[in-house]
């Protein structure tokens, strides 16, 4: 479902093609040795909207506003909002005045980048050469794919319908240079050019806005009476560089094909994804385990070839007519060793209660990370700790006991005893020892999470009081006199009394 004007946008109308000396698709290669590339640009002017709202949410007027903008300027709006007079660049207050019940979302660049990445991945079905042009365009070199898809128009139509199915509104354009295609798509002319010679010819129809240059540059150019790209090309080159810098001239040259513009290719990271169908439906570990071992052995071989490790692993146990049981295993340190992974999976599997018999097992790796290879020592054996052993122990304990049952502790520079530490990821970095007030009286090795009332105790006070009176600024202020006490049974305790005295004793720590 496409909002706005649909498919007519992408393929060039017949008349334009003739007027601009556009070579019909599928023609034999030009003999004059010109670089034979053809770039398809897919521009998504409403990408901020698509990234946040599903296409089905178009029943209500919706806008996306700029992030961290006090005016909350509108970046994109849906068709319904546009019909009610909202345009990009408007302030949110103006938009709300026009449409009181407006749905307002704040732009999320991360979601936009992820969507663009998905689109680029999808575009790989047309050609292996796909490149992302942030913030909202995907470029693809399609010359080699024209025959396969039945020509440029057929390819464009196919791409457009695919994007529409995904609920995306796209402006498509073809040009012999990636930047040229980008300009054409942004200019929304409904034009395509397939020959490099034709690029300067249509420059007069490309407005300055399609270049997306800095606002002050565009203002300066407009003041010079420059309205479109053709005017720009007529400017003396040396003067242009002196005034606006060499980068913009390079861009201009790249757009009209005077200068090559290498593009960074979008490469989909490799992942492991394999499924093993079980010979019988079962939930018996006796049958599941060997199947898993085989998959894990394949995974380990896959990783070894790439000298990579994985930071995590996903195991899906597929059932008949039921959602799969998903097991997710995180690793403390990227690993690629089958024995270690298999131990972890076995522990997790033992804890899992399967709702039904398993028909198949699917094993998926996350992203691959390069593994630092380590030489096995020639002479030392078993003496010092295997660098991986510490991480492995953590993985194994967590696989069986759960993530929260295994943790570390970390001191925090703070005078209130109960806030002077926190639970931390084991092995985290410790602040420099210089930060600690080492001259303070001894602290107990055991600390109670919460101080406990401790009224009826028998014994003697050994040292004290140590007055701790702080924290008034955040509402958790304490006013206490701490004492070290020795009980009858010989246990040394850390006790305190609230100030002013009278509220009795509290136990806060044990010296151990």
């Amino acid at each position, binding site marked *: 479902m496409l909002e706005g004007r649909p498919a007519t946008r992408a393929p060039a109308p017949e008349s334009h093609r003739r007027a601009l000396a556009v070579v019909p698709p599928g023609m034999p290669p030009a003999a004059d040795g010109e670089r034979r590339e053809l770039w398809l640009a897919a521009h998504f002017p409403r990408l901020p909207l698509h990234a946040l709202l599903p296409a089905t949410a178009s029943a209500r007027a919706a806008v996306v506003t700029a992030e961290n903008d006090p005016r909350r300027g509108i970046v994109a709006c849906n068709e319904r909002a546009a019909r009610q007079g909202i345009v990009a660049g408007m302030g949110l207050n103006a938009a709300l005045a026009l449409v009181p019940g407006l749905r307002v979302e704040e732009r999320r660049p991360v979601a936009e980048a992820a969507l663009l990445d998905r689109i680029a991945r999808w575009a790989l079905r047309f050609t292996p050469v796909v490149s992302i042009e942030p913030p909202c365009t995907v470029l693809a070199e399609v010359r080699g794919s024209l025959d396969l898809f039945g020509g440029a128009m057929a390819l464009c139509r196919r791409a457009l319908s695919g994007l529409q199915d995904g609920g995306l509104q796209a402006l498509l354009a073809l040009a012999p240079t990636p930047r040229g295609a980008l300009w054409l798509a942004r200019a929304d002319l409904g034009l395509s050019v397939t020959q490099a010679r034709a690029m300067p010819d249509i420059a007069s129809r490309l407005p300055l806005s399609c270049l997306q240059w800095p606002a002050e540059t565009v203002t300066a150019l407009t003041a010079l009476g420059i309205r479109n790209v053709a005017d720009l090309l007529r400017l003396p080159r040396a003067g242009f560089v002196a005034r606006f810098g060499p980068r913009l001239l390079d861009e201009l040259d790249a757009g009209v094909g005077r200068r090559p513009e290498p593009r960074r290719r979008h490469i989909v990271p490799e992942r492991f994804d394999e499924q093993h169908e079980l010979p019988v439906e079962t939930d018996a570990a006796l049958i599941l385990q060997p199947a898993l071992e085989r998959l894990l052995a394949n995974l380990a071989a896959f990783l070894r070839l790439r000298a990579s490790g994985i930071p995590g692993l996903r195991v899906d146990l597929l059932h008949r007519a039921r959602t799969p049981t998903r097991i997710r295993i995180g690793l403390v340190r990227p690993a690629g060793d089958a024995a270690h992974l298999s131990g972890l999976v076995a522990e997790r599997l033992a804890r899992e209660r399967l709702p039904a018999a398993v028909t198949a097992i699917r094993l998926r790796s996350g992203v691959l990370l390069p593994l630092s290879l380590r030489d096995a020592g020639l002479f030392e054996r078993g003496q010092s*700790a295997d660098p991986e052993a510490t991480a492995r122990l953590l993985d194994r304990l967590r696989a069986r006991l759960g993530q929260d049952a295994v943790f570390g502790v970390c001191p925090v520079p703070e005078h209130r005893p109960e806030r002077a530490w926190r639970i*931390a990821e084991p092995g985290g970095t410790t602040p420099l020892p210089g930060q600690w007030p080492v001259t303070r009286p001894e602290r107990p090795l*055991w600390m109670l999470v919460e101080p406990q009332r401790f009224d009826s105790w028998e014994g003697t006070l050994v040292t004290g009081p140590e007055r701790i009176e702080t924290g008034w600024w955040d509402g958790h202020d304490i006013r206490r006199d701490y004492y070290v006490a020795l009980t009858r049974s010989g246990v040394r305790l850390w006790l305190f009394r609230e100030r002013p005295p009278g509220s009795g004793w509290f136990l806060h720590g044990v010296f151990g």
Partner: protein
Amino acid sequence: MSDALAELLRHPALWQGGAGGEMPAAVPSGFRRLDERLPGGGWPLSTLVELLIPSAGIGEIHLLLPALRQLSLASPGEPRWIAWLAPPHLPYAPALADAGLDPARMLVIRPRAGLDLLWAMEQALRSGACTAVLGWIGAADNRALRRLKLAAEEGRSPGFLFRPAAHRKESSPAALRLVLAAHDDGLDVEILKSRGGMPSRIDRLSIH
């Protein structure tokens, strides 16, 4: 002596009495009076040590602190863990730092079930990734303790077990068993069993 027998005698789990027995590797406890009584001059490494205490908090951790400090300093290469299994309270990071132990190397493990506790302690000992493993284990049969001892030997990690003094009458495979009792001036230490040493007592060991 036949080869098979010689091989059997080399087994790390087998201890031979008499002059043939080597001094076990040990780390000084930091308390001279205690070191004098212990074979090897300190806490034995790569095995199980049992500390029987009437109640938690009488100074049992202070008794270990100098050795823990030494062990964590001596460990070469990748820093290893000091594992705390099911401690009665949480170890207090600032106090650990004051005592010279790096809080980042502490690994606190609090399993929910008792069986998991023994399993976790065995894993920690066997992994070789811990400079020391401290475990608070109540009732455990001889077989479970023997497994822990084998794991400690395999992973070359000392395992310190803290158990209620009520268990002193039970037999235990631990290489060293001490009964601690609180005293105004420190600890009364009774050496109940010491592999390669003699049972004895140390009164009023000052630990602070």
